[in-house]
């Protein structure tokens, strides 16, 4: 039995009399500690897939099983790092993480332990220094760091990242990718990341799940990225495995499943 099992999941959105099939027969097994990226053109339903795993979107048919238990509703054991960070603007950086920690560990940890845990997670993303700032006072990259800290602080069985670096500039994005690799190496979390960035997918993932275009998107191909960790961005530029993996994904996206512009 795999750690996370996505078993023949279909998703159809119903709006009045019209129904739109979004995902068709998605099956995927993910092992503990794996870093899996889901890549595809926009509108292919990759975010819907993530929301289904999170439990935020109900499934039409099929099932998602985490450690053998069916996922029916959202919960902190499947923490989500949202694309637009989704920090609460009226709370400080510290309080945003504290909201999660107090809810998840309120009964199990003492106040001092919870404080240490909040600071530990903020330090993990190098945001301890800004704990008293409000989200409006920090940069986009910093907000996303706090979002990651909030997700990690729930000690999730699986961390779901919904295009976490999509809204950031290239340099900030590279910084955060390095941070995520560091965290993944240290904590060994299971992570699923939605992305549309080929380099990001190859750099970070153990496996890349490539989705066909919607409607009724399927898993087109799954690519194993056999690159040793820790990975160094600069060393990989000329690495043959890296180049081959990159080429495979690009070919999938731009040759076999080209994005057809919806009228």
């Amino acid at each position, binding site marked *: 039995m795999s750690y996370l099992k996505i078993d023949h999941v279909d998703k159809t959105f119903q709006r009045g009399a019209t129904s739109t099939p979004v995902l068709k027969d998605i099956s995927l097994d993910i092992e503990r500690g794996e870093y899996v990226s889901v890549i595809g053109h926009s509108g292919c339903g990759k975010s819907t897939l993530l929301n289904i795993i*999170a*439990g*935020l979107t109900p499934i039409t048919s099929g099932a998602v099983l985490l450690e053998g238990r069916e996922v029916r*509703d*959202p*919960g*902190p054991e*499947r*923490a*989500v790092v*949202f694309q*637009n960070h*989704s920090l*609460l*603007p*009226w*709370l400080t950086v510290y309080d945003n993480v504290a*909201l*999660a920690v107090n*809810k*998840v560990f309120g009964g199990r940890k003492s106040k001092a332990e919870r404080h240490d845990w909040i600071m530990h997670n903020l330090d993990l993303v190098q945001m301890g220094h800004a704990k008293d700032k*409000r*989200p*409006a006072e920090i940069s986009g990259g910093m907000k996303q760091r706090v979002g990651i800290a909030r997700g990690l602080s*729930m000690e999730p069985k699986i961390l779901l990242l919904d295009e976490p670096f999509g809204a950031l500039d290239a340099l900030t994005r590279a910084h955060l990718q390095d941070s995520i690799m560091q965290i993944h190496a240290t904590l060994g979390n299971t992570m699923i990341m939605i992305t549309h960035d080929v380099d990001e997918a190859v750099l970070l993932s153990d496996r890349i799940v490539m989705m066909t275009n919607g409607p009724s998107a399927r898993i087109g191909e799954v690519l194993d990225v056999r690159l040793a960790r820790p990975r160094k961005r600069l060393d990989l530029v000329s690495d043959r495995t890296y180049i081959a993996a990159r080429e495979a994904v690009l070919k999938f996206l731009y040759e076999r499943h080209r994005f057809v512009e919806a009228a």
Partner: protein
Amino acid sequence: MGRAVLKEVETGATVVALPGAKPGVVPLPAPPRKPISSRLLPWLRTILVNVLPPLVTVALIALFWQIAAAGPQSSLPPPTKIWEEAKDLIVEPFYWAGSQDIGLGWRILVSLQRVAIGFSLAAIVGVLLGALVGQSVWAMRGLDPIFQVLRTVPPLAWLPLSLAAFRDSQPSAIFVIFITAIWPVIINTAVGIRNIPQDYRNVAQVLRLNQVEFFFKIMVPSAAPYIFTGLRIGVGLSWLAIVAAEMLTGGVGIGFFIWDAWNSSRLSDIIVALIYIGVVGFVLDRLVALTGSIVTRGTLTH
């Protein structure tokens, strides 16, 4: 900064060159300590700029009024006559000489107390009902049409009914305040709740916040700007309603004072009371607005 110049280089690449941008450190002379008068000057200036125009306007209105109401045939008293007749009301707002012979300050306080009770009840019930209507589609379908009809009923139309129900003027006046102030609070809160971004709801769902936690940690802070808009409209309406309600219910409030003064033909007293009411209403509005801007400073800056 010089103008960017594009140069075609032989390789075909485009090079952008910025002429004349020489980096260097320019030493700034230490700023001399300004004398106190020049530091006070801008501060004085702002005060003058903001206070002088309304003062001039008031003076002009008073002058015009004085001329217009100067004749012996005039039906309204000129400012000088008001000063003569109602000087005690103006300079001594807090004198006490018997049950009906008291300063306007006391009367205002009595009215304010009624507004405080009625408005606080309206705020609490309004936010709760607004949250219900904003959160639940069925509650909205069921309640919203009723709210839309009831909110158009003028405050005073409620008074006979409420007198009949409570059989006392004090709770009746408070009820009128309550029923006047509650509608904008309900409607604005509901709009605020409906506008809570889906992202915040997702966060709450992932954290499995329960209804109470969701109400206090997500709903209220997120809808706070809307709630305070409703409260601000509500406090203004209650101050409008209290004066009218007190005219009919009697007692010690500022509304009854006006009615009493009219019955004894003390026009100067009425004019002084009007100014009191205006100033207090203005202060109430600013107080709620100030509270709102302090409470929502986090929510509004994103």
